[in-house]
C-alpha cells in the first residue's frame, strides 16, 4: 500500500464507519457520548445553541442593515429637492402641465386645467414636490 494513499484510505475508512451512525440506535449513540464523559442532552443542547447563535447573528445583521437603510432614507428626505418650483407663473403652469402629463393618475383630477388659478398651481406644485412627484426633466 503506497504511503501516498494513506490519507485517502483514512478518509474512506472514517467516512464508511461514520455511515453506521445512521444505523445505530439513539440509545447507543447516547451511550457513546456518556463514554466520552459527556452528557447526551448537553451535547444536543450544544448543537441547538450553535444553530441559535448563528440565527441570532444573522437576524441582528439584517436588522442593522434595515436600520442603515432607514437612516439613509430619512437623510435623503431631508435633502433639498433637486427640482425647484420656478418663480415665473408661466413656467409654473408649464411645469404643472408637464407633471400631470407624466403622472397619469393626476390627469383625471384636473380636467379643467384652464380654470386652475396660479395660486392653486403653486400649491399643487408644492404638494407634488413634497411627494417627490415633480418630473426631473424640463417641460
Amino acid at each position, binding site marked *: 500500500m503506497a*504511503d*501516498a*494513499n*494513506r*490519507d*485517502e*484510505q*483514512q*478518509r*474512506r*475508512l*472514517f*467516512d*464508511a*464507519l*461514520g455511515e*453506521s*451512525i*445512521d*444505523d*445505530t440506535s*439513539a440509545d*447507543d*449513540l*447516547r451511550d*457513546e*457520548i456518556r*463514554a*466520552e464523559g459527556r452528557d*447526551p442532552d448537553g*451535547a*444536543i443542547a*450544544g*448543537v*441547538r445553541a*450553535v*444553530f441559535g*447563535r*448563528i*440565527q441570532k447573528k*444573522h437576524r441582528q445583521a439584517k436588522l442593522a442593515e434595515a436600520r442603515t437603510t432607514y437612516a439613509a432614507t430619512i437623510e435623503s428626505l431631508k435633502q433639498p429637492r433637486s427640482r425647484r418650483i420656478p418663480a415665473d407663473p408661466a413656467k409654473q403652469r408649464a411645469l404643472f402641465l408637464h407633471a400631470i402629463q407624466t403622472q397619469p393618475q393626476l390627469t383625471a383630477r384636473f380636467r379643467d386645467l384652464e380654470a386652475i388659478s396660479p395660486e392653486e398651481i403653486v400649491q399643487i406644485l408644492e404638494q407634488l414636490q413634497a411627494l417627490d412627484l415633480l418630473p426631473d426633466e424640463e417641460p
Partner: protein
Amino acid sequence: MATPGSRRVPAEQAATREQIDRAVAALTDEEVLRLERHAAWRIRGLGPAADARDAEDLVNDAFELTYSGARSWNTAVPFYIHLKGVLRSVSDHWREKYATQLSAGRGRLDASEDARTAAETAVDDPRVRAGFQDTLDAVYALFQGDRVALDILEGLAEGLESADIRAIAGLGQTPYESKVRAIRRALIDAGLKRPTVTQKGPGRG
C-alpha cells in the same frame, strides 16, 4: 468564509432563511444527536488535521455556510441529510487545507484552486504522511487478532463495496452491519480522539 463543496442549487429550490428556521425548529432531538455524532466522528477522522477544532466548530461552520447561503439547502433534500453533507464537505476542506499548509510550511491559505492542487501533492510530504499513517496504524493495531474486523477495515479503507467486504469476511448483511457499528464503538471506547502526532499542526486557516 470559504465555501467548501459549493454546489449550485436551482433558485426555486434554494431555501429561504425562514424555511431554514422552520427546518431547524423541526429537527428532532434524535436528529440533532445524530448530527452531533457525525460531527464528532468527522473530527476523529481528521486526526491532526482537526487542529484543535471540535464537533461544535464543525457544526458551526456547516450551519453558517447553510444559513449564509454559501451552501444553499436544496429543499428537495431533507434538512438533516443536507447538514450531514455539509459537515462532510467542511471536514474534507479542513483536511485538504491542513495537508496544504503543512506541506507548504506556511500559514493561512485560501481554498483556491492553487491550494487544492497543492493538497493533491501534499501527501508526498513525510510530515503529512506521518499524521495520517499514525491514525491508520492505531486503528489497525486496535483490532489486531480480530480477522473479521481487519477484513472490514481494510476493505473500507480500500473503498470496496460492502457486498465485496462481506464476501471476503464471510458475513451476512446484518452481522456485517453489527460488526461495523461495533468497530466504530470500539474506536470511540479506545479513546481515539486525537491520534498520536509527531508534528504540531500548521495553525488554523
